[in-house]
């Protein structure tokens, strides 16, 4: 039937799922602040070509202590649907070498969603661990990690048993740092445990499982 497969409204439902790039790669210095904007999302096949769903988000991060950064974000695409989707996350420096060339950041987070149409509310905890490798004089970062959203609802629509307890991903990315500005590119392999055929959305789906997310971001840092 070819219904609305290429541009249907169902494509757009992915906007809520793992819709942003990594908020905190390496915690900020104490007192440091950063404002970021991100663009990108899960990839779909559209008109014969793979494209990332163009989702946007903005975020603010604050280094509240050495190795501890608090960040808050807002999905600006979902706002257009009358849905407030916000997240708050805490980046914790778990380990770094003395030379500060390599480190590990753990980031628990919570996503909140509320729609102004019917007042439906959802929240999803998120856990993420990122290892980073710093190189160059600026210095730039390579990073990679794993993360997951956690589904708290035990049932699905119509009382069906919940079978998707986790929505995990693996991430690799690069952050290109300048004096005040940072530029981020990132790939995520999302929901790799989910079989994506048959599905209503024509995801770019390696081996028929999950989808590849593509993201870019820009940040402006403010020192104390």
């Amino acid at each position, binding site marked *: 039937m070819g219904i609305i497969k290429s541009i249907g409204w169902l494509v757009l*439902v992915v906007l*809520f799922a793992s819709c942003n790039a990594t908020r905190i790669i390496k915690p900020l210095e104490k007192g440091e602040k950063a404002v970021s904007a991100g663009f990108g999302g899960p990839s779909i096949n559209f008109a014969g070509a793979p494209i990332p769903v163009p989702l946007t988000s903005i975020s603010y991060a604050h280094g509240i202590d050495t190795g501890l950064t608090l960040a808050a974000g807002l999905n600006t695409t*979902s706002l257009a649907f009358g849905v407030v989707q916000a997240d708050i996350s805490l980046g914790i420096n778990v380990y770094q070498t003395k030379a500060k060339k390599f480190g590990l950041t753990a980031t628990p987070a919570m996503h909140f969603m509320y729609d102004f149409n019917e007042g439906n509310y959802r929240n999803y905890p998120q856990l993420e661990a990122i290892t980073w490798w710093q190189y160059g004089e600026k210095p730039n970062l390579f990073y990679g990690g794993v993360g997951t959203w956690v589904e708290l609802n035990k049932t699905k*629509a119509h009382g*069906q048993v919940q079978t998707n307890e986790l929505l995990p991903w693996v991430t690799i990315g690069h952050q290109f740092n300048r004096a005040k500005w940072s530029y981020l590119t990132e790939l995520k392999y999302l929901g790799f445990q989910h079989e994506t055929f048959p599905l209503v959305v024509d995801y770019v789906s390696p081996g028929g499982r999950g989808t590849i997310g593509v993201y870019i971001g820009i940040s402006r840092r403010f020192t104390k």
Partner: protein
Amino acid sequence: MKKIIYIALAVLFSSCLRLDSFLYNADDSLTEYKLDAYEGEVEIEVGPAYDVDDSLIHLMTLQSDPSGENKTIWAVYVGRIANIATDTIILYCHGNKDHLDFYWSRVKLLANTGSKNRYGIMAMDYRGFGVSEGPSSEEGLYADVDACMAWLKQMGLSDDRLIIYGYSMGSAPATELTANVRTMQPSKLMLEAPFASEEVFVEDASGLSLPGSYFTNLEINNGDEIKKVEEPFFWIHGVNDDYIQMKTHGETVFGNYQGSYSEAHRIEGAVHNDVPVVMGYPEYLDAVHKFILRP
């Protein structure tokens, strides 16, 4: 400053994007119905063996919802109108694509159920589809199918001889009007590739239990409405349906049915739009006919 924020929020949320209209994949570029002469894409190819005599094809306009959002819609009846008072009629509610010309071959196929023209078949273009006046709406689906029932009733059809068949999006009016009677109470319900609700679409696509209200104001809910249906129920679905998943949508609708009799046909190798093709037309028609003949 506060005022500005409130005004901005009010404007934002009063003009929210809603995805309801994407449900209707209608083609309203037609200026007239061509049926057999239509040269565009069709749902299935059936061949001359399933042709019906021109004298039995009755194109007509109906006034739908005259006391509300009145629209002129188009419908086709295949059979002898004079025999509606005694015949059994299948009211076919098509899917969300294009128009009646696209589904005409299916109407002809159903007109061969049992034997050629053993049953009368009625199908319509919902408002916004084909030459029917638009725009499309959820309530319009129900009103337009009900308008067909009103015409059939006027022609002498009784509830016990009305069978309603909904395919894909057409499962919504078929289920709704069987569960919540308006003009007529269909005696049997047949659903092909039904969807449970927009919430299941959202869950399938996102992997999360997100409410459908995040994206749409549609209230179509076959998964719950089917619980009210007591009439015998026939469900057929492609196991490999690549749009409306059999497991999450179809099985939910079938599993929630609590009426007097149900039968399931899970068609191996079939996707969303080729169930009769994969089954084979004789086998498909045989399954439909056996269900109709059930007491």
